[in-house]
């Protein structure tokens, strides 16, 4: 595993994204499905970067998407009449990431001192608390949220706004997914990857080995949060052009992220995209063929999967491929 060869596992993942992207372009009318899948994959990829590598379950993860959504919403609704054109999107993205990072610093300072279930519950607390602060103190219009289709149109024009919401937002989601993938493998193959692996397995021993666990945890936490912020800004703000706190701080998105990562294989590079595709596609066709019953079918399946294949799909493939030529492409 020397030099460039250690980055080979990124190839299958990036190819998969390319294939998904191409499929969306070639087959008319499949784009929104592709967009939804890309969202799930990106969500998993970003979530896995922290949760998969450290083993810490951030149940309040959705808060970072939420605040990212607000970042973009504020930029578009606030700067629409400044004649910045597409500039509002750029500013929005920056704002989203900054918001997410700031929030993650605050959360990290508090929650990362805790472990296991205490960490999970603390992060839930952060998400819910933040949401009620927004509603209770009437921040950003409180529960009325911000609806900004109009402002987006004013800012960039009718056609561009349409294209942004129905195509370019999704392209940006792909972008987030790819960045997340690259960062993941760079981390995994770098010192930080070994540090995180060590603290995941035995945090106290890791400290004794000279690993500044807090520092590495924070780095992974912030990276993951920043990606979430960008994801919120694109998949929720630019695409849907409105934001209500009750929607963007909804805990079921965290749960979806967990499901995706677990289906694919926590702490693996390939896992989130595999999990995201399995999850998205099956949800979609269940909704199409048995509307109203899909959850009743889906939930038991999840349980079966986590009982039968605790290491996830990719974990399994990894074991199967160990020692074969493919091994060096799977991580």
């Amino acid at each position: 595993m020397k030099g460039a060869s250690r980055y080979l596992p990124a190839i299958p993942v990036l190819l998969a994204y390319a294939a998904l992207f191409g499929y969306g372009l070639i087959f008319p009318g499949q784009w929104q499905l592709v967009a939804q899948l890309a969202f799930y994959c990106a969500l998993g990829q970003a979530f896995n970067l922290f949760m998969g590598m450290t083993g810490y379950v951030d149940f309040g993860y959705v808060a970072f998407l939420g605040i990212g959504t607000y970042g973009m919403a504020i930029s578009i609704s606030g700067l629409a009449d400044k004649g910045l054109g597409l500039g509002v999107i750029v500013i929005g993205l920056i704002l989203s990431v900054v918001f997410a990072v700031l929030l993650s610093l605050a959360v990290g300072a508090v929650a990362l001192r805790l472990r296991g279930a205490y960490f999970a519950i603390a992060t839930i607390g952060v998400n819910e608390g933040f949401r009620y602060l927004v509603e209770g103190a009437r921040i950003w219009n409180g529960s009325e949220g911000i609806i900004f289709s109009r402002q987006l149109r004013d800012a960039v024009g009718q056609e561009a706004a349409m294209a942004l919401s129905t195509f370019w937002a999704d392209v940006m989601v792909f972008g987030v997914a790819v960045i997340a993938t690259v960062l993941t493998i760079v981390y995994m193959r770098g010192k930080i990857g070994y540090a995180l692996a060590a603290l995941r397995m035995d945090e106290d021993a890791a400290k004794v080995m000279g690993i500044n666990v807090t520092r590495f945890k924070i780095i992974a936490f912030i990276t993951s949060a920043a990606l979430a912020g960008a994801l919120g800004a694109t998949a929720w703000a630019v695409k849907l052009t409105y934001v209500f706190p009750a929607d963007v701080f909804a805990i079921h998105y965290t749960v979806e992220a967990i499901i995706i990562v677990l289906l694919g294989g926590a702490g693996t590079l390939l896992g989130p995209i595999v999990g995201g595709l399995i999850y998205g596609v099956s949800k979609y066709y269940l909704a199409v063929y048995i509307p109203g019953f899909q959850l009743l079918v889906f939930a038991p399946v999840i349980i079966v999967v986590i009982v039968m294949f605790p290491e996830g799909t990719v974990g399994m493939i990894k074991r199967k491929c160990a020692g074969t030529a493919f091994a060096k492409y799977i991580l």
Partner: protein
Amino acid sequence: MKKTTFFALNLLAAFFCVATAFAADLPQKIVIGHPEALSGAQAKAGEQAVGGIKAVIKWVNTVQGGVKVGEKKIPLDYKYYDCESKREAVTSLLERLITVDKVNFIMAPYSSSLTLAGAPVAEKYGILYMDHGGASDKIFTQGFKFIVQTIGLGTRYHVGTLNMLKKKDPASKRLALAYKDDEFGRSVMEGAEAHAKKLGYDIVFKRTYPPTVNDLTPLLSELKASRPDIVLGGGHLADGQLFTQQMADLGIQTKAFSLIAAVTLPAFQNALKEKADGVMGPSHWELGVTYTKEKAQKAGQAWIGPSQDEFVKLFKEAIGKDLRPEYHAAEAGAAVLSLVLGIEKANSLDSGKVRAALGKITFMSFYGAWGIDETGQQVGHDLIDAQWQGDKLVIVWPEEGATGSLLYPKPAFK
């Protein structure tokens, strides 16, 4: 050069229009697509809406023999998926309906949030997007071209109620407002507050409560202390029931008490029994409203659709349960009826043409009057006010639609 290409393009465009126009007259059926919420938070309303739509479609196909386009009567067809009350699902299912299932028109999912989620995609494909459950006024300030609303505006829910109470008892001026803290609840509160000020009420209490509330005691104790004559509020279903029960628990007696959404549903009275007595609520439609062909003719309105009893019968068949249709069902059904008239007036299946036609028509059905302004917002439909008297839901306002007189002051909680 420029001019010629422009001209050529126009020709081309024109040609395609003609072509599509011809093509559009041919299909064997007109398909209405619907990414409705059948599980998750909005499941109840979604179930009702699907039932209402199926019922009306059945009526159109059997009684009217389809929708008249040109010389041909084309039957309606209905294709729906479950978006799980999730925004991501709305966009992808919506596009599937348009591109894979090639539906002609779309019904929006229930709730303002989900309706907004689908709007950009509907606009992109330029397909008519019938809003049956998105009451937010803001939807119509965004400049969407293809949204047509059937449910009324949030801001108008309690306007009629206040007019009625003002007429009944001008002396009682102490008004308390307590609504659910979400986009819809707040828009109702704004409307009520503005109108109350106009009528000279003094607002002695104004609060909201979180959507997922399970104990209102603190808020209600504060409300009690403000000694209101009238309490207006509410938001959705569970909180409405809770509101009423805890009003009773704390023995808060008022002359009038009206909640949005929850009250007019049968579940409300089933849950609260005698505690529901005298509680009232505004609604777009209730079982027992007396909108008939005759009334329509008197009012000089076009009439379409099943009578109320026919609708109830068709609804129960469609849904396969002995479930009573509620206003969610009626709204969705009425939306389909408006679509039928729109198509027939436009004499085309082209969304743009139908949208234009809908802007010109007004009509009456079992659901009541229907008419939209240029933004697509519903302005023709008036809300009614209904009050529980014993185990009967009596419509007390507007007077011309009333089935009984207002029980005032409201009987005390036992």
